[in-house]
């Protein structure tokens, strides 16, 4: 896909990310997954190259780049090692909430560490009983003077136990959505604990788990935005987060396509490469078309965001389409490899397992359809959940 409107420096940035991803991240992806090893050092490496805070302002150490450039970087990283890209996306999701809603003193203290990649961020919205119905959350924050006292359990938290700070949606009032507030909780806060992480079908290198608060005391100064504004912040953060997932899904699908094309050109049956059979060649053509369409969709949504236009619906479309495409493309990549693709000796089965969760997290693809159809139908929508 052409990138005619990028500046010379942005092209150099993408070349740099391509080099680092290909030389440093791709070679370790399979082993990180096999050993369930979180590539925290890869994130630190991105930080050392000033790549952990690209879409944030330079006054807090960010790169001052449009979202469209940041997403291209994510795609490039995901093409090599999707867990590193996912981690950068979640880190950015948490950092965005701090950059947009923290008071000056908190921002000055925390943001430079986050944008430098010195600190790793995490985002805690879901709970055991509130997934798609996110506003039903029950983790409570009782105010006692200048602190909130937190009790409850967050679930499905990416970076649980690994992050340095957690952006946590908590209940401070009785109204379902307007009774939610957002707090920034440092990982070393007494009363925070991390049960063993989830054992998953894929993305084992990415730690997912619960974050438990037991009388954890958090200063009121760590609140992001006003009391009761938390659910709005959570949803606004997800608009950006969903674009991040879309870009990660495109990178993952591109990786599967790269492998499938390479294999189809080299695997011989009936005396010629299998790519010369129409049955395989047309599959590759459909895979490539899907990847390119998904890429166009996330870039269009990013362009709207960068232009300051409403983009929530488009972010949901990009997330929905890109992750469904990644699922189909990775599944077809396994098909192109035949029996070899089903073995762990080749990378495509891992890519297929990694794609599956992308249809689920950051809002299931059913919830994306709710967001999109609500945008179309407004309050007439039958698909209203809250």
């Amino acid at each position, binding site marked *: 896909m052409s990138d005619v409107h990028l500046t*010379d*420096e942005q092209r*150099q*940035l993408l070349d*740099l990310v391509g*080099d*680092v991803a290909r030389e440093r991240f791709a070679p370790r992806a399979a082993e990180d997954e096999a050993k369930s090893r979180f590539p925290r050092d890869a994130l630190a490496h991105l930080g*050392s*190259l*000033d*790549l952990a805070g*690209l879409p944030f302002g330079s006054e807090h150490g960010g*790169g001052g780049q449009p979202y469209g450039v940041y997403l291209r970087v994510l795609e490039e990283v995901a093409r090599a090692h999707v867990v590193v890209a996912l981690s950068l996306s979640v880190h950015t999701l948490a950092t965005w909430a701090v950059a947009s809603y923290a008071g000056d003193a908190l921002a000055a203290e925390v943001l430079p560490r986050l944008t430098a990649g010195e600190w790793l961020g995490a985002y805690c919205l879901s709970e055991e009983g509130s997934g798609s119905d996110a506003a039903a959350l029950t983790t409570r924050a009782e105010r006692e003077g200048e602190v909130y006292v937190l009790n409850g359990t967050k679930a499905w938290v990416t970076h649980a136990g690994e992050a340095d700070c957690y952006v946590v949606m908590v209940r401070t009032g009785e109204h379902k959505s307007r009774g939610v507030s957002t707090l920034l909780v440092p990982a070393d806060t007494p009363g925070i604990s991390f049960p063993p992480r989830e054992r998953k079908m894929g993305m084992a290198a990415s730690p997912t788990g619960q974050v438990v608060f037991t009388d954890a005391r958090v200063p009121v100064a760590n609140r992001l935005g006003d009391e009761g504004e938390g659910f709005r912040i959570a949803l606004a953060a997800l608009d950006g987060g969903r674009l991040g997932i879309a870009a990660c899904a495109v990178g993952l699908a591109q990786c599967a396509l790269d492998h499938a094309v390479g294999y189809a050109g080299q695997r011989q049956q009936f005396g010629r490469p299998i790519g010369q059979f129409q049955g395989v060649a047309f599959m590759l053509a459909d895979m490539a078309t899907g990847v390119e369409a998904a890429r166009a969709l996330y870039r269009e949504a990013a362009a709207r965001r960068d232009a300051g236009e409403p983009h929530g619906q488009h972010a949901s479309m990009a997330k929905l389409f890109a992750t469904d495409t990644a699922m189909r493309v990775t599944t077809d990549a396994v098909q192109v490899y035949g029996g070899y693709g089903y073995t762990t000796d080749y990378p495509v089965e891992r890519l297929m397992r990694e794609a599956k969760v992308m249809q689920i997290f950051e809002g299931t693809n059913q919830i994306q359809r709710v967001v999109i159809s609500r945008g179309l139908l407004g309050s007439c929508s039958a698909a209203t959940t809250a």
Partner: protein
Amino acid sequence: MRIICPIKRVPDTAADKKIDATDNTVDRDGSEPVLNANDEWSIEEAMRIKERDGAEVIVLCMGPEAAQTTIRKALSYGLDGAIHVNDEGVAGSDAVGTARVLAAALADEEFDLIIMGNQSSDARTMLVPAMLAEFLDLPALTYAKKLDVADGTATVQREMPSGHQVVEAPLPAVVSVVEAINEPRYPSFKGIMAAKSKPVATPDLAALGVDAGEVGLGGAWTQVDEITPKPPKEAGEKVSDDGSGNLGAQAVAEFLTKQKLL
């Protein structure tokens, strides 16, 4: 301390090189040009000295206007400025012509060290570092796989086929480096952004007082008369083993013995 890093813009090493049939020079428009890989080691070595002891590091490059992109790339590693000898008249220079121009560009510059790659990936003559030292009347420490700079002296381990020599020289000196010297860093994004505002001087041959007749293709002491492409690789010899004995291994051993490799 002030360090000069001469660099070269070369055709992409991964691409097939094309030759201009009219004058037997490398067709530099044939592939996307890149920074010569060996220069990444010299830049890394200069940056390590800069970070350890403090130094101003200046890129020196001879080439056409388009070499600006290669110079910016070099600056993105954190170097401080550049001298770009920007003159179409240098095209086709051989090693002597190149060294002559680089020496002229440094005639009025203050510096303590020149650190450069031991060769360029396109010409591979490995001559320019020593010739530059000769033109500047400086000691040349070539093929360095380790460099220490202290108390006005440069000490290198000079890579040899069967070990290394330890050689030292008083500063200023020319040091050429080989791959074993370090692992080059990646530029940072802020380095990329800062590179565009670093100062780049752009003297032409006249400003340096170089006689245009002594450089470029016309002034070259050497000329390429003929170029023969490397013959394609011959088909190898296949050794099969039916699994019943060590016949395959034996055939491989015999082959290696015949080639005097065993």
